[in-house]
């Protein structure tokens, strides 16, 4: 998701670099974070602090497939919680357990701004309307 921008970026490149590395490796391992710290000449503690602050940075490897369920207000009102329970049962995984069953994991995601289609399901990054269970 890290876009290449056509402009030089002097100071605050850390978040962008983390996006890039996560895209390359799927997650941000401690080794990756150590390398980023060295490259950008930043204290390792600072790099870890930033990486762990943001929800979208993953510090552990993701499962190959991921199913997200929007828990925004509109989706919640249209049955997101029941949808999550149904999906958890179907996939045999626990909600918001990043390890999942090794193949699939199920996570809540923040509002995607697609409230018009609530409840919204995100299958491997592709949002779509889910039929309320």
């Amino acid at each position, binding site marked *: *998701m*890290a*876009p290449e*921008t*056509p*402009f030089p*970026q002097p*100071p*605050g*490149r*850390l*978040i*962008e670099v*983390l*996006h890039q590395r996560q895209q390359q490796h799927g997650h941000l391992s401690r080794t990756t974070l150590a390398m980023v710290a060295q490259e950008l000449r930043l204290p390792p503690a*600072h790099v870890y*602090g*930033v990486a762990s*602050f*943001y*929800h*979208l*940075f993953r510090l552990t490897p993701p499962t190959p497939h991921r199913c997200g369920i929007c*828990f*925004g*207000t*509109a989706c*919640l*009102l*249209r049955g997101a919680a029941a949808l999550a329970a149904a999906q958890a049962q179907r996939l045999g995984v626990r909600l918001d357990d990043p390890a999942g069953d090794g193949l699939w994991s199920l996570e809540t*995601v*923040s*509002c*995607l*701004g*697609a*409230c*018009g*289609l*609530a409840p*919204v399901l995100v299958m491997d990054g*592709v*949002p*779509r*309307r889910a039929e309320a269970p």
Partner: protein
Amino acid sequence: MRDGETAPVQLRLCDASGCRAAGAGALAAALGAALEGGGGQGPRPRLKPVGCLRLCSHGPLLALDHGGASALYGGLTAEQVPTLLAIACNHPGGHDGDRDPRRRALEAHRLDSHHPFFALQHPLVLETCGLVDPTDLDDALAHGAYRQLQRLLATATPAQVRAEVRRSGLRGRGGAGYPTGLKWDTVALQPPAPRLVVANGDEGDPGAFMDRSVLEGDPHRLLEGLAIAAYAVGARHGYIYVRAEYPLAIERLLRAVVQAMERGLLGQADPATGFAFVPELRVGAGAYVCGEETALLASIAGGRGIPRQRPPFPAQAGLAGCPTLINNIETLAALPALLRMGGEAYAAIGPAACPGTKVFSVSGSVVRTGLVEVPMGISLRTVVQTMAGGVPGGIGADGGIKAVQTGGPSGGCLPAALLDTPIDYEGLRALGSSLGSGGLVVLDHSCAMPELARHFMAFCAGESCGKCIPCRAGTVQLADLLERLMQRRATAADLDLIEQLAAVVQRTSLCGLGQTAPNPLVSTLRHFRHEYSERLLPDEPWLS
């Protein structure tokens, strides 16, 4: 018009993420294939991807422009493509016209463009969203993009631009409603130093998707607005911060920036004034608090999105200590139309204290969900009932509506009895709610208010940055206490504690997140107190 006067036949397919999720991709592929291979006769209709066509609940949306008129269709699938193209190409279509069952099937998907949902809209921010191809600079230019920027550079000083915006009475659309002209003056009048502008596209309020629609549907309008703001306050460099959850908006915006730079519309010194403006895109990483302006600056600088105490305000000391103008995407996107019509004409729209138009995203339990742009001061009822149609199958004077949630996690709920309230910043605030950034979530009678309050409190607890104690520890306690209440394990003393905690969190938190986190709770306590008290454990006087 680049397309010539003969009004070609054109298919505008909504290619924004809402309709994409509803299957616009498959429809586009089918249309593309049919047009490629298409039959010989007649002029070929042009397929044009556009931004949001407003009525998201009926997506994928497609508009057919034909002979000067437009027909809007919703929920089409690939099977209907041949029939659609037959109409577009003026083919009688096999059998005789209207009696053709396939045509009748298609007509069933036709949406009434005279319905109040469309008829009551007053598009300014969204005036070309849904008309222009967001990936095509030439198309944007043909629709007037960058014309106001060029006119102002040629004819107005920065002070004159600021005066015009002051005259318009425009107030920030990011939630606080701060007068935009005043903020611009503060930045412009700081002691000499470099200045920066920032477009706030973090849009984290659940239920809000106005800014996303602007970015996905008309990115050049934002860039023009941002460049005008930069000219007005004397900045040459700016940032656009977009949340990472909006990949399509990021892609479109990035492409628009490259196009505008290559064409010399941005980035190159204006021959008359020497003004050159370079925008830079920054992508968030999933943190609601980064919409708060000081956290936004920390995040742009590459750090944890932790707010700091104001003053100094960013307008005085922002990024790297430079005076920094921060405006919401919609605020900036309102500028081209505002400056074209002039401050006075803009000020004449809506109430004097809060003029102009506002984009709302309507979702929840309503027949029609989507985007509406309406004059400020319109009543809530007009928007959620007349335009959006109320609750599906809802009956009664209020259309089955129980309440309307405005302002997301920092806002509140207004009961149906208050639906005639005109929408503006002070009006909603006086009733214990807030306009916020413009998300309207309609609630029906199946919604339990304490549960809604618990949902928002848990959201804020999860999004608290953790810096200050009242917000970090207080929101968690409140969410737990509300959970206890929902499980009918809370006592009257717990409810007292809830109210005390809410007041302290509001009053003592460092930034807007904590200060407003109790609002949904407090506003539902105000209007729906019985829903809380009826869930309390009965008093057991023999225990005390």
